[in-house]
């Protein structure tokens, strides 16, 4: 399993318009191409997860995640906001890089946990935040995942 297999170019936004955490979550959910009701339900679930504790893991990275009935397969998205968003992250620093992961409650291949783990591992690589900040095009994001072998 490789992370690059889960990301599509249209689910990568290197220039988020959002200024707040809620806006960023909505903008990322919007990248998944769901209908309005499903987007609303998913946003609510992601908010509920954030209310349990921030998914900002430090080093300017956040990984909001949840399982929901409104998706029929594992979906991921990536968004970047170079000026930073207050995510109440572990290190209290603004978040620039947001990885969204959503999965249905039942998955035949059970990829949710491994994908979450790989993204967390990717985010902990020392040069990743800087490399993500330097990306110019979505294709370069995919190339970085390949280069890191995650």
């Amino acid at each position, binding site marked *: 399993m490789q992370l690059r297999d889960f990301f599509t170019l249209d689910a990568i936004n290197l220039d988020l318009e959002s200024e707040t955490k809620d806006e960023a979550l909505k903008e990322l959910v919007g990248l998944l191409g769901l209908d309005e009701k499903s987007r609303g339900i998913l946003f*609510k679930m992601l908010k509920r997860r954030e209310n*349990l504790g921030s*998914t900002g893991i430090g080093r300017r990275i956040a990984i909001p995640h*949840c399982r929901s009935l409104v998706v029929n397969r594992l979906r991921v998205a990536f968004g970047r906001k170079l000026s930073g968003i207050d995510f109440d992250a*572990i290190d209290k620093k603004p978040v620039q890089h947001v990885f969204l992961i959503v999965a249905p409650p039942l998955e035949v291949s059970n990829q949710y*946990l491994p994908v979450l*783990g790989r993204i967390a591992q990717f985010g902990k690589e020392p040069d990743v935040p800087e490399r993500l900040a330097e990306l110019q095009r979505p294709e370069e994001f995919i190339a970085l995942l390949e280069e890191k072998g995650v």
Partner: protein
Amino acid sequence: MHPQLELLLELQDLQTQRRALEDDPLRDMEEAVFELRPAEALDLLQVKIAEVIDRLEPGIRRRYMDLAGNLDRAVAPVLNGICYGCFVATPTAWASEAGRNDHIGVCDYCGRFLYYVD
């Protein structure tokens, strides 16, 4: 979408989140990567679950409680005409209706509430 179905989906997603936090591998990751405190999170989730159950109409709440007491999940997704609670085909005519999530449907076989995933 029927407002009560929306509540049922929310409820099912909350129950999924609760179960996930009780499951060792995810709980371990939530603690290690996100510094989540599972015991506190589970308490908060339980409060939210109770709040949503209170917002269900009495008849739906009764059915939900019966199902939740007997089955692993009370709401099942329908994919390609199959109820993913019991893996039996749902009636074809109804499954193909537009706006099929605008009413509360239940599986003829297992009785779970149904949510049609596009």
